[in-house]
């Protein structure tokens, strides 16, 4: 079992994951098209006085007001927790020394590794974040109103490899079983990544950066086909 989840299943799920993410990205690209940004003069009349320059003070006020009323200003805890959660979610498995040693021996490439202590801390952050999300789902009415079993399932799916990884690292319970479970749940997460709502990772970068709209963070150079 251990060898299977570590060997063939891992490679299969890794390939499925990467292929799935590429598939999602291509699909989004094909669902959208390049948007031609038409340039137009700001003032129509040559005799229109140019708008009075906005003072540095007002610009500053504007920045503060925008910030305070943005999602960061309005939900600082939520934004902070999810940022840390997402960073750790990616960084800890990718940069974990043990993972990289295995990767290196298998295909000869490796990413820079971080100290185990830091990875452990990151894992704790992920678990804490997941716990925060769970409590939020249960206790905050607006979140509870839109939470389905699927949402809990995905949260569980995301959490499991980290929980088992944490247990394995600290050698709690039966090491080999926990490790097998860790790899198995990791493989399942990899497979699930492109095909569940975790795929929002692709959508986020695509939509917020490229699709024109009020909240677009990039140039907004694309638009949906219809």
């Amino acid at each position, binding site marked *: 079992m251990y060898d299977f989840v570590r060997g063939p299943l891992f490679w299969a799920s890794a390939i499925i994951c990467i292929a799935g993410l590429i598939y999602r990205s291509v699909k989004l690209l094909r669902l959208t098209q390049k948007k031609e*940004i*038409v340039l*137009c*003069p700001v003032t*129509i*009349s*040559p005799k229109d006085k140019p708008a*009075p320059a906005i003072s540095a003070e*007002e610009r500053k*006020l*504007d920045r*503060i*007001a*925008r910030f*305070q*009323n943005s999602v960061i200003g309005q939900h600082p805890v939520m934004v902070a927790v999810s940022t840390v959660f997402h960073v750790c979610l990616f960084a800890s498995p990718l940069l974990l020394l043990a993972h990289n040693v295995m990767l290196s021996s298998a295909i000869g490439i490796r990413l820079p590794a971080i100290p185990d202590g830091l990875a452990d801390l990151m894992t704790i952050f992920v678990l804490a974040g997941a716990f925060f999300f769970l409590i939020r789902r249960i206790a905050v009415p607006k979140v509870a109103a839109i939470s389905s079993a699927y949402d809990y399932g995905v949260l569980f799916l995301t959490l499991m490899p980290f929980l088992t990884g944490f247990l394995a690292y600290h050698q709690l319970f039966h090491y080999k079983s926990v490790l097998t479970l860790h790899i198995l749940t990791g493989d399942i997460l990899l497979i699930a990544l492109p095909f569940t709502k975790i795929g929002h990772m692709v959508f986020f970068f695509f939509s917020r950066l490229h699709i*024109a*709209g*009020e909240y*677009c963070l990039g140039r*907004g150079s694309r638009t949906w086909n219809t």
Partner: protein
Amino acid sequence: MVIAEIKPLEEIKELVKGYKKILNTGCGGCTSVCLAGGQKEVDTLNTKLTLSFQADHVPFEIDGFTVERQCEVQFITEFDRLVKSRKYDAILSMACGAGVQFLAERYPETPVFPAVNSTFVGVNKDIGWYEERCKCCGDCVLGFTGGICPVSMCAKGLFNGPCGGPQGESCEVSKDIPCAWVAIYKRLKGQNRLESIRTIHAPRQWRDQIQGRIILEPYKARYVKSE
């Protein structure tokens, strides 16, 4: 929809100067859609005003509340409870001129100030780009002008254009504005309907000279005073 533009902060400050407790009202209709007076703009403006008066060491308190539309009684009554309980010195409205006046009419004892300039009836060309298309003149001529409005698109509002001024296909006032009548001519020619501008269109009976009022036919019995 009605396109509006938020007034400069200094002007709004000047309007509400001296009033200590203010309600800023947003509109979920047109001004929301054109990013001028929706809930987000209410929040942002309130923050700016608060910080700005704070810096001036002027006591100032402002609440924000946004309703569906300020041009309908059933929605502006939403403000009643707030206005009654909080006893505001003044009200700011981020709706178009119609909404501002409707609020002022509902709360005649409270000064109501506009926070946006209603500019025109237009279209959403692209995100953050609006263009005028209608002057609400009350007597639509689009039928004979190929769907291009000479009242709002021609700088002179001519009914028997084009004048002698077009520079190429641009209006005489700016090369950045297409001549409406050149466009009308081209469209009608393409539709084989040039006849409709070969005839003289008589001076029109302007309907936008006094306050407009429309009562739909089925409702006439309900509202119209019998002579």
